[in-house]
């Protein structure tokens, strides 16, 4: 359902007007940096579990895991955390199709969970993710990694690892495209199609 929202025709038309702010090689470089930061901050990343937030956060988490595995030469548990049923705006839209929540086999109790998402905006998605985590287990600590932080927080939430800080206006949209889902890697900054349009992030 998310996919439909983001690719419906008016938005797609505007997307051509949008300006890339990160291209494929930039994204790869940024993820490599975040992976190193995680290893550094987590002192070897022994107990790290990566949980991506669907849809694109999951692919980012998988890419990060691959990079972490290169660095640490160990298997890094990676999974996904769907936050749909924890959203605070459920009553403002028709129900959305659920995405998969996949917690790695050893669970998250006592682990360092790094949540991974593509864009950090209001912070409400992360709030929902923290609630969802709470029903699944008790991590030692929770950190947040995002590809883009576009500002405009509505809750006291900040990212521990940021690919790119991107100051934006509320009239702009940030669209992350990833090869796994969209056929190419890029981050686009564009004008908001309609006031009533689905918020991107």
């Amino acid at each position, binding site marked *: 359902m998310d996919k439909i929202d983001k690719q419906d025709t008016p938005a797609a038309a505007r997307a051509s007007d949008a300006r890339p702010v990160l291209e494929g090689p930039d994204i790869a470089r940024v993820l490599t940096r975040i992976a190193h930061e995680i290893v550094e901050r987590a002192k070897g990343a022994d107990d790290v579990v990566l949980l991506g937030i669907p849809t694109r956060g999951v692919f980012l988490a998988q890419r990060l895991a691959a990079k972490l595995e290169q660095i640490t030469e160990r298997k890094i548990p990676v999974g996904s955390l769907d936050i749909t049923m924890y959203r605070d705006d*459920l009553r403002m839209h*028709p129900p959305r199709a659920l995405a998969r929540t996949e917690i790695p086999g050893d669970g998250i109790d006592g682990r360092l969970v790094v949540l991974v998402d593509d864009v950090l905006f209001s912070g409400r998605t992360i709030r929902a993710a923290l609630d969802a985590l709470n029903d*699944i287990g008790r991590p030692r600590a929770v950190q947040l990694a995002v590809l883009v932080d576009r500002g405009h927080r509505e809750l006291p939430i900040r990212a521990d690892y940021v690919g790119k800080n991107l100051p934006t206006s509320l009239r702009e949209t940030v669209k992350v495209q990833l090869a796994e889902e969209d056929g190419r890697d890029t981050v686009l900054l564009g004008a908001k199609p309609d006031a009533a349009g689905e918020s991107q992030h």
Partner: protein
Amino acid sequence: MQRHLISAADLTRDDAVLILDTAEEMARVADRPIKKLPTLRGRTVVNLFFEDSTRTRISFEAAEKRLSADVINFSAKGSSVSKGESLKDTAQTLEAMGVDAVVIRHGASGAPYRLATSGWIDAVVINAGDGTHQHPTQALLDAFTMRRRLTGRDAGLGQDLSGRRVTIVGDVLHSRVARSNVDLLHTLGAEVTLVAPPTLLPVGVESWPCEVSYDLDATLPKSDAVMMLRVQRERMNAAFFPTEREYSRRYGLDGERMARMPEHAVVMHPGPMVRGMEITAEVADSPRCTVVEQVANGVSIRMAVLYLLLGGNEPAVTHTRTEEK
């Protein structure tokens, strides 16, 4: 999706697949330490049961509670209903208490439809079985069980039941489960065959989107799933069949018959089973029999339906039906 769930026939293929896919995610909640989601926090759901049905009521109640809804159970027995209060008055009384959804089980065919369309109340109506009409969540959980067993949990996501051959055996005439299943399985692309003595098939069954056979043995080898319906012993007294023994011999499923089914085929039963009548203990207890799974799947399906009808500001959006109606 439509606003209410009254009949399995009201679901499009996309509606049904969305419900099955959603139920698959809901099923995972059961594996977590905290089997609860905050999704319907602040919503009130009443289980309005005019007929005794502990298993359906408990299944809905478990689903509602896992989604954090406030649950009111209303059983007609010993209530004002038994003192002559009408369905309309009962429903309006409940709505005055701020009910968002009514899950209704009623002995009269069409009672949920009346409740949803007569303007008596605004709440969302979910049919938990009405007379000999429909039991849509049962059909959904049956389809869910089949998809899991025949296609697989993950492989099944997004899939319907195209090409699957399902045989429904028993008292079709008095069965809302059979009606709902014929409608839903047809929508999902399955080929349905009803097998029953002619006395237990409704006049007009020839217009249903399914085949009809009187011969169970000929149908079994061509079945991916065989659904046994309960046959009440009372039917015997109304001359629907001569004796229990004759019924079992012609239409009951025993081990020998089960052996004629393809190896992958499953045996289903909506419960409660009448062992020794339509099904032998050997079959009921075999690993091919999905009865217990069906119960567990019922909770997941009902969670999915509740979420998709009540979780947002309107029902979930899927493709609208273009044919018929």
